[in-house]
C-alpha cells in the first residue's frame, strides 16, 4: 500500500471523436482514488448573446441557428417561441403543426446521425460509420436513408436542411402547398418501417450494466410528446411554466471549460435532459407505433442506464416519423403563413426540446423591436455536470484496464449523451463557484 502513496495516474482523451464540436477528457487519480474528472470544452467562444443585442428581433432565429449546425431548428424554435411570448403573438394551430413537422425533420436528421453514424460504431466495435460500412454496408446505408428523409423534409419546408431560411417570428415566410408536402407521405411510411426495423436490431445490442439515480427533466405537455411547448417537469415532481426556467436552474462557469454547467437550484445537483428524460416523463404520449415497439423490445421506463440512450433515440425516431406522417396527411397551408405583430418593450422566455434535450431562450426587446438582452441555455451545457458525475461513478468498473482502454470506455460513455459541444459555449445566468 505504502509504495503507492502519492501516486498519480492521469488518463486523457486529447480530442473526443464522433461528438459535435471539440472537447477532451481529463481524469486524475491519486492512489487509486478519483481526484478529478473534467469534460474539457475547447470550442472557442463565439459570443452570440453579446452580438444579438441591438439586432432587430427578426434576425434572431437566423442568427441563433448558427450556434449549431446539427440542431439549428431547435434554436429557431426556442427563439421564435420566446420572442412571440414577449410580443404577445398567438400563432394559429396550423402554424403550430407546421412547426412540429419541421422539428420532426430535425429530430430524424439529428437522431439518425447519432444513432447510426456516431454511436452504433461503439457497440459494434468500429472507429466510425465509414469503417463500419465495410463490414455492415446495409446498416450504414439504412442509417443514411433514414437521415436523408429528415434532411429532405427540412429542405422542402425550411428551404435547406442546415440553417433553414423559412422560419420567422410569427410563423413561416412561405407555407408549402399541399402538393409540396403530400409527396412525402409514402417515403415517410417507408422511413417509419426502416426506423422500426433498426430499433429492433438496436434493442439486441450488448449494453453495459450501469444504473444512475437521475433527476430527469423535460418539457411535458398534456397531449403531445415533448417538443414545442409544455411545462418543465422533473421526475421528482417539479412542474413550472417554461419561462420560469431561470428561477430554477442556474449555470456555473468552471475553469476547465468555455461552457457553463447547470444545476437545479432546489437540489444543488446536476440533472439529465434528452431522450431518456423525455421517454420517462412522457411515455404515454409516444405515438402508438413507438409505444408498441417499446413493449415489443421490452424497453420500459424508468430506464436509468445512459447506454440505453441509443434505444430511446431510436424509439423517438419512430415517433418522429409517425407524427410527421400524421401532420403530412392532414396538412392545410396556414393562412396567413405568418402572424403580424407590433413591437413593444417586453421580455419573454420559452423552452423547446432540441434532439439533445431542453433548450431555453430568454430575450428582452425594446419598443423599436431591437434585442436588449439574450439568454441561451443549450442542453449539453446543462448535461455536462451529470456527464461528469456519471463518469465518476462509472470509472471504478473500468479502472483495472490499461489507460488507453479506460479512456476509450469513458469516451464511449460520453458519446451516449450525444453531446453537442459547439452549442455548449454559452452563457445564461451564472453563479460563480468561488470554492
Amino acid at each position, binding site marked *: 500500500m505504502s509504495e503507492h502513496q502519492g501516486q498519480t495516474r492521469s488518463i486523457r482523451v486529447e*480530442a*473526443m*471523436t*464522433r*461528438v*459535435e*464540436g*471539440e472537447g477532451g477528457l481529463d481524469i486524475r487519480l491519486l492512489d487509486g482514488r478519483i481526484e478529478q474528472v473534467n469534460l474539457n470544452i475547447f*470550442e*472557442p*467562444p*463565439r*459570443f*452570440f*448573446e*453579446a*452580438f444579438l443585442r441591438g439586432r*432587430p428581433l427578426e*434576425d434572431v432565429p*437566423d*442568427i441563433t441557428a*448558427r*450556434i*449549431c*449546425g*446539427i440542431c*439549428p431548428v431547435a434554436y429557431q424554435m426556442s427563439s421564435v417561441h420566446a420572442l412571440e411570448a414577449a410580443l404577445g403573438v398567438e400563432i394559429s394551430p396550423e402554424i403550430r403543426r407546421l412547426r412540429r413537422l419541421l422539428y420532426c425533420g430535425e429530430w430524424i436528421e439529428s437522431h439518425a*446521425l447519432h444513432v447510426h*453514424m456516431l454511436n452504433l*460504431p461503439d457497440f459494434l466495435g468500429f*472507429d*466510425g460509420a*465509414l*469503417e463500419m*460500412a465495410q463490414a455492415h454496408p446495409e446498416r*450504414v446505408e439504412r442509417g*443514411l*436513408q433514414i*437521415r*436523408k428523409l429528415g*434532411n429532405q423534409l427540412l429542405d422542402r419546408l425550411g*428551404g*435547406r*436542411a*442546415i*440553417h433553414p*431560411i*423559412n422560419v*420567422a417570428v410569427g410563423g413561416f*415566410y412561405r407555407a408549402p402547398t399541399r402538393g409540396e408536402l403530400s409527396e412525402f407521405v409514402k417515403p415517410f411510411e417507408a422511413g417509419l418501417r426502416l426506423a422500426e426495423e433498426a430499433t429492433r436490431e438496436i434493442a439486441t445490442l450488448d449494453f453495459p450494466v450501469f444504473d444512475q439515480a437521475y433527476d430527469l427533466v423535460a418539457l411535458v405537455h398534456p397531449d403531445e410528446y415533448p417538443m414545442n411547448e409544455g411545462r418543465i417537469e422533473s421526475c421528482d415532481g417539479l412542474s413550472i411554466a417554461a419561462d420560469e426556467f431561470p428561477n430554477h436552474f442556474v449555470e456555473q*462557469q*468552471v*475553469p476547465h471549460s*468555455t461552457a457553463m454547467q447547470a444545476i437545479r437550484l432546489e437540489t444543488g445537483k446536476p440533472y439529465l435532459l434528452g431522450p431518456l428524460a423525455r421517454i420517462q416523463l412522457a411515455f404515454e404520449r409516444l405515438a402508438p407505433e413507438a409505444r408498441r415497439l417499446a413493449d415489443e423490445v421490452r424497453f420500459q421506463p424508468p430506464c436509468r442506464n445512459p447506454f440505453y440512450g441509443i434505444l430511446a433515440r431510436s424509439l423517438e425516431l419512430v415517433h418522429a416519423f409517425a407524427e410527421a406522417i400524421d401532420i403530412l396527411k392532414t396538412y392545410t397551408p396556414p393562412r396567413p403563413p405568418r402572424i403580424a405583430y407590433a413591437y413593444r418593450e417586453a421580455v419573454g422566455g420559452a423552452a423547446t426540446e432540441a434532439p439533445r434535450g431542453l433548450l431555453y431562450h430568454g430575450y428582452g426587446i425594446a419598443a423599436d423591436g431591437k434585442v436588449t438582452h439574450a439568454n441561451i441555455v443549450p442542453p449539453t451545457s446543462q448535461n455536462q455536470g451529470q456527464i461528469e458525475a456519471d463518469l465518476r461513478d462509472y470509472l471504478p468498473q473500468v479502472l483495472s484496464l490499461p489507460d488507453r482502454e479506460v479512456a476509450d470506455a469513458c*469516451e464511449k460513455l460520453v458519446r451516449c449523451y450525444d453531446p453537442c459541444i*459547439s452549442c455548449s459555449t*454559452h*452563457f445564461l445566468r*451564472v453563479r*460563480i463557484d468561488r470554492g
Partner: protein
Amino acid sequence: MPAKPRLAVVKFASCDGCQLSLLSLEDELLRLAGKIEVAYFLEATSRIEPGPYDVVLVEGSITTADDATRIQQLRRAAKYLITIGACATAGGIQALKNWADSEEYLRAVYARPDYIRTLATSTAIADHVAVDFELRGCPINKHQLLEVLRSLLAGCQPRTPTYSVCVECKRRGSVCVMVAHGTPCLGPVTQAGCGAICPAYDRGCYGCFGPSDQPNLVPLTDHLRSIGMTPEQVVNSLRGFSGYAGEFRRESERLVESIGTIATGVGAAAVEPDVADSSGEWGDGQPGGDPK
C-alpha cells in the same frame, strides 16, 4: 493527386454545419469514402492519422492565439487547403465582434472572463495562411462540395460560379421579391451557389454566400434606402454571416461614416438615393456587373 488521396476535415470557431454537409451527402458518401482516405475527421471517426494530407477542408474562423498557431501547422501539413463556409472564408457571424469592444463582450457573456482566452477578432483563414480554394455559404452547398472533391479526384482545378444570386434566382423562375413586393434583397451583390433559396420562399437574400465578383454595392444600398430602409438597417443587413467579407465590410463601414454626416445634417444630399437610377440598374432583378 495520389491514387487514394488523404483527406482531413478540421474545425476552428464554427457551428459544425459545413463539415456536416459532407456527412449529408447520403447518396454519395460511401462511394466517395472508397476513393479517398479519411485520415482526420473528428466528427466522423475515431481513427486519427497524422499529416501530411492531400486535401484539407477547413471550417471555422480564427479567434484564439492557439488557433492562429494551429492553422500555420495545418497549412504546412496540407497540400491543398480548402476553406468551407462563411466562418472560414470571412470570419462568420462571430466576426461581428470585430466592430465591438471585445472586452465588453467577454464581460457580457462570462462571469469569469479570466477563465476565457480569446483574441479581439474573428478572422478568415486567408488572413493567416494561403488558401487554395474557397467554398462560400453559411452553410456551404453540399453539391458544390461534392463537385470540388470530384474535380480534385479527377486532377482538375475546381471552379464555382462567381456571378450573383440574381442569376440563379431567374434560372429558378422565382418572382423577384424586390420588384414584386419591395422586399429588401441582397441577391444582386451576393455570390451564387445556394440555388437562390430565399426568394423562392418569399424572402430576400440575406447574403450568406458573401459578395459576388465585383458587386455593385452602392447602387444597391441606395435602392434599399429608397424602398424605406434606414441607413442603420442597411448596415445591419450587410453585417450578417459574411459581413466581414471585403466589399460587404467596406460598404457597411462607408455607411456608418455617412450616418455620422446625416446625423449632423451635413452631406445628406450626397447619400440621397436616386430611385430611378438604381432601380433601372438592377431593381428589375438584373444583376449589375454580372455575366449576362
